[in-house]
């Protein structure tokens, strides 16, 4: 096998110096000459019709340049999420949003926006806008919203308040499977709303040229799809719209796959009304109440097994709270089902799931995309089966997990799995054999160990449109420029994609430049989501790099009078096979035109330039998808007198195919685990009886701080998937997927109590402990 020089090494991130020194620029940092600042008026009501809206006083305020409402802005339906740009045929993308509407559907919904010479003036103007509302009945729970008596939030054809289609995934015969099972476990699980709390809030700066060309700098994770959405929302051709990151994004986690909530359309509409550049930066409170959240909801699971532990049938059902607008509410339940049913080899499976419109903040994409919700239920069901059969939960999993070549419901095949190795390594890290022997009788502080496993995607094909393009241009000194449409949102894209290009071509990493996250300078790419950037955009970069390498070797072959297959090309040096590097000294080939045994990339590029030639590689790929696998073993401590649950340690073993940059991979795993710990223990957004959210700031919303982080041991397992670049698969979302289940199973191990609702707040845990104690007495 070829020795790797650059891939597989924890090389320093390309953005490290800029970010460590505070010189990296983000949308929030942008300032353009003459730029105005926008602020948005948001609905105080969960559901209301705007009877009258009077902006005259606001417009009169000194410094106010424009006020936008539903009356003076385009009435073209769109969907802020990228779903409207890549929903596959036979399904219609749900378009249910205007920039402003005359009906508001959640507390925080956009009513109007003001552009003014400062944020302070814009804020003062908001207070002068008079709005008369007719209150409409509101509903907040998805099950209640499906009842006949509930208000209709949008017209729907699949069922009462059900956006898009109901997802049904059948395989085999579940009735028969359950009939043949010796044991069945069945339960309902309840999931809360989680928020991304990415560091940079939603933001955009828009500029509209006199002839109508629109440029938008924003926090989007998907510049190219965002261009499509904006072109549709403003009724212009896509060629008139440029969307770019400037160049960094302060995190994403799914919150801006498509538009950054409504930051872009509000900025554009005000830029059109004023003729000036306009900046929109969401406050943290706005980000909490008016940009997508994770889907809350209910998951039902029914799992049947033979006495020997062989799984016979599984039935999974999900009803998710989609909130007031569709966003990714059609796809999220689909991924929940598709992933949940693809972990174990079960002959009879069935999934039924959908979202439901309610009058709360829209739910959309968030790290894991429905999968953590489903696995929370499934992995606890697996533990219950193990407990009832007296089997080791570890062994029961190993007995039933999907193996390479097994039939499954997914339309692509499982070509690699390291799940068994993940389970063993994670268990070993936490001394799994201690399980069941960790507590002294009568102890008030209990310890427990639990496991959760799962799989995910490496891109979104074939669930939606998913293809990638990349160009590589060889410059006249032999260095190269990679052009790719994906962004850098903190995940290491601009480090790892150059690593792939440098390794593939055979040049040092410092010879690689990259342009990214800009519709003007990069070819179409659907962007960063679905754990896909390295796997999918990386495949296109490798294809473009192979194209360049082929062209260079052909050129060098002519020059060195040697067939390309008899040339070696590494570290910027092209030489005849067998020649030692130390023999390749001296230069001047460009001028002398003599036959040599070797040539440097630098000399070759300039040689070609002097002969009117440049090498340009093109990669156009449709990634086939591949399953990453993961097992988390978690140790927790439960204080039985206060209900406090503390996560002590998480061993997170991940089959990532191949770690292109192991340090970045470990960072992704650790981040996912910690986000999962918060989701499990303390994070949730609750509402009052009128639908007003109660958790609207980082102080109120209890995401873990550095002081709360457990010890996290990231373990990388490599299986070299045949479809991925250098064998790599997705990893970005995976740390999130099995974390809640592993924690809940550990709490069960400690207390003997099965918790079916997240988060495991001290109050919720203490209540169950007290109930259990009562029953014993």
């Amino acid at each position: 096998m070829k020795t790797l020089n650059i891939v597989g090494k924890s090389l320093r991130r390309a953005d490290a110096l800029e970010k460590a020194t505070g010189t990296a620029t983000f949308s929030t940092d942008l300032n353009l000459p003459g730029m105005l600042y926008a602020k948005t008026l948001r609905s105080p009501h969960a559901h209301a019709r705007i009877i009258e809206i009077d902006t005259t006083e606001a417009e009169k305020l000194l410094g106010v340049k424009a006020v936008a409402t539903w009356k003076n802005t385009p009435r073209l339906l769109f969907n802020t999420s990228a779903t409207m740009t890549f929903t596959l045929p036979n399904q219609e993308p749900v378009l249910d949003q205007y920039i402003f509407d005359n009906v508001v559907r959640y507390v925080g919904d956009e009513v109007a926006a003001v552009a003014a010479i400062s944020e302070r003036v814009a804020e003062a103007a908001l207070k002068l806008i008079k709005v008369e509302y007719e209150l409409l009945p509101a509903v907040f729970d998805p099950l209640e919203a499906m009842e006949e008596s509930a208000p209709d939030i949008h017209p729907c054809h699949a069922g009462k308040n059900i956006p898009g289609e109901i997802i049904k995934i059948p395989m085999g015969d579940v009735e028969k499977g359950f009939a043949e099972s010796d044991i069945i476990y069945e339960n309902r699980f309840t999931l809360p709303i989680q928020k991304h709390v990415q560091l940079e809030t939603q933001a955009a700066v828009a500029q509209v040229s006199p002839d109508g060309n629109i440029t938008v700098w924003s926090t989007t994770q998907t510049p190219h799809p965002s261009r499509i959405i904006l072109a549709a929302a403003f009724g212009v051709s896509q060629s008139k719209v440029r969307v770019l990151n400037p160049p960094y994004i302060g995190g994403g986690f799914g919150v801006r796959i498509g538009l950054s909530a409504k930051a872009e359309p509000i900025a554009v509409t005000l830029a059109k009304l004023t003729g000036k550049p306009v900046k929109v930066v969401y406050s943290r409170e706005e980000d909490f109440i008016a940009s997508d959240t994770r889907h809350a909801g209910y998951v039902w699971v029914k799992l049947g097994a033979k006495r020997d532990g062989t799984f016979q049938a599984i039935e999974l059902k999900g009803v998710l709270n989609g909130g007031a607008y569709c966003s990714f509410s059609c796809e999220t339940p689909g991924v929940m089902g598709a992933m949940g049913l693809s972990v174990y080899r079960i002959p009879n499976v069935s999934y039924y799931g959908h979202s439901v419109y309610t009058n709360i903040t829209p739910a959309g994409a968030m790290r894991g995309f429905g999968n953590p919700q489903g696995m929370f239920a499934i992995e606890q069901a697996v533990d219950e089966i193990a407990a009832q059969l007296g089997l080791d939960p570890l062994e029961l999993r190993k007995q039933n997990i999907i193996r390479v070549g097994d039939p499954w419901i997914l339309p692509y095949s499982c070509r690699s799995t390291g799940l068994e190795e993940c389970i063993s390594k994670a268990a070993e890290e936490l001394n799994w054999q201690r399980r069941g022997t960790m507590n002294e009788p009568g102890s008030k502080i209990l310890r427990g160990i639990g496991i959760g496993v799962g799989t995910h995607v490496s891109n979104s094909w074939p669930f939606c449109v998913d293809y990638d393009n990349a160009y590589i241009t060889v410059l006249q000194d032999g260095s190269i420029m990679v052009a790719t449409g994906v962004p850098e949102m903190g995940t290491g894209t601009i480090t790892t994609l150059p690593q792939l290009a440098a390794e593939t071509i055979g040049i040092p990493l410092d010879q690689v430049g990259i342009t990214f996250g800009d519709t003007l300078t990069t070819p179409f790419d659907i962007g960063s989501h679905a754990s896909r950037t390295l796997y999918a955009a990386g495949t296109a970069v490798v294809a473009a790099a192979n194209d360049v390498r082929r062209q260079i070797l052909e050129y060098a072959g002519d020059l060195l009078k040697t067939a390309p297959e008899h040339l070696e090309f590494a570290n910027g040096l092209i030489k005849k096979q067998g020649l030692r590097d130390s023999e390749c000294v001296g230069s001047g080939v460009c001028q002398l035109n003599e036959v040599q045994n070797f040539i440097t990339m630098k000399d070759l590029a300039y040689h070609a330039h002097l002969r009117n030639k440049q090498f340009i590689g093109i990669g156009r790929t449709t990634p086939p998808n591949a399953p990453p696998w993961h097992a988390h073993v978690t140790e927790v401590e439960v204080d039985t007198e206060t209900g406090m649950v503390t996560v002590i340690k998480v061993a997170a073993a991940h089959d990532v195919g191949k770690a292109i940059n192991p340090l970045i991979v470990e960072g992704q795993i650790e981040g996912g685990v910690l986000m999962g710990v918060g989701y499990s223990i303390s994070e949730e957004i609750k509402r009052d009886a009128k639908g007003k959210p109660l958790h609207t700031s980082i102080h109120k919303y209890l995401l873990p701080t550095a002081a709360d982080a457990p010890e996290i041991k990231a373990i990388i397992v490599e299986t070299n998937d045949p479809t991925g670049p250098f064998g790599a698969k997705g990893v970005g979302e995976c740390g999130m997927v099995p974390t809640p289940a592993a924690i809940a199973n550990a709490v069960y191990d400690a207390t003997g109590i099965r918790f079916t609702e997240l988060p495991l707040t001290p109050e919720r845990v203490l209540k169950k402990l007290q109930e259990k104690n009562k029953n014993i007495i």
Partner: protein
Amino acid sequence: MIEQRGKGYEYCRPGSWEELAAILCKAEAGVMFLAGGTDLAVDLRTGKKSCAHLVDLKGLTELQGIAETAAEEGKKGEICIGSLTSIHQLEINPLLQEKAAALPEAACQLGSRQVRNRATLGGNLANASPTADTAAPLLVLDAFLELWSPSGSRHIPVEDLWQKAGKTFLAADEIIRQITLPLAPGRGTAFMKLGPRQAMDIAIINAAASLELEDGRISQVRIALGGAGERPLRMKQAEAFLLGKEATAEHFAQAGVLAAQESSPRSSRRASREYRLATIPVLTERVLLKALSRLS
């Protein structure tokens, strides 16, 4: 003196007591005092609070510092803390760590490192949060406060500072100048905080205790709780119950039950009244055990 206009208020920073007195005599109403600003600056920006005059006390440098006065004949030793001493200074002070452990123990759990660098002891007390982390320790340390206003100084026990959540008995032109802790050499003190997050979290309940033993029996005891009522509270029935008894876990548990009986917590976004009532006995018992372990 520095002066400038802020959002709807006049900002000034007097550099002497005379300047401060002059400002307060001139200002008719709407004075707010700025110490660390970790709560007030946020509330002024969001509009939750407003004032006509914002008087920054940080120009009065003598308000910072921690000093011990040694015991003399007929007079106990004491530790005096300037009201603008930062929470971080409390956290790292060896004198407090040795002689009033509950206070630095509370200080190191308040907010975050950044907040602790900025927030002050006087600010934490005057903010009058029912769960202020420094309140319960000062209650069990028998702290008293020196208050200052243009019309003179007075001393009050810390217990007499608070009316209810967000409200003190301070006059409109009155500030806390100094916090004094009488020293008691044979005393063990401790603090504990209950909340789901290890930093940047307001306690659901916090508790402090101080204990002295004589011949194996409790000769002095103080128990104070935050989050048990609309202001930080001494648990006097629980204290009375323990006085003269042996310092055992059983007695501490019984004291905890009494503490819950004399508490009247409210339900909030953070926790329900029921949860607070259920955990008050637990925290009371544990903090007493911890104070006991600190007795040499």
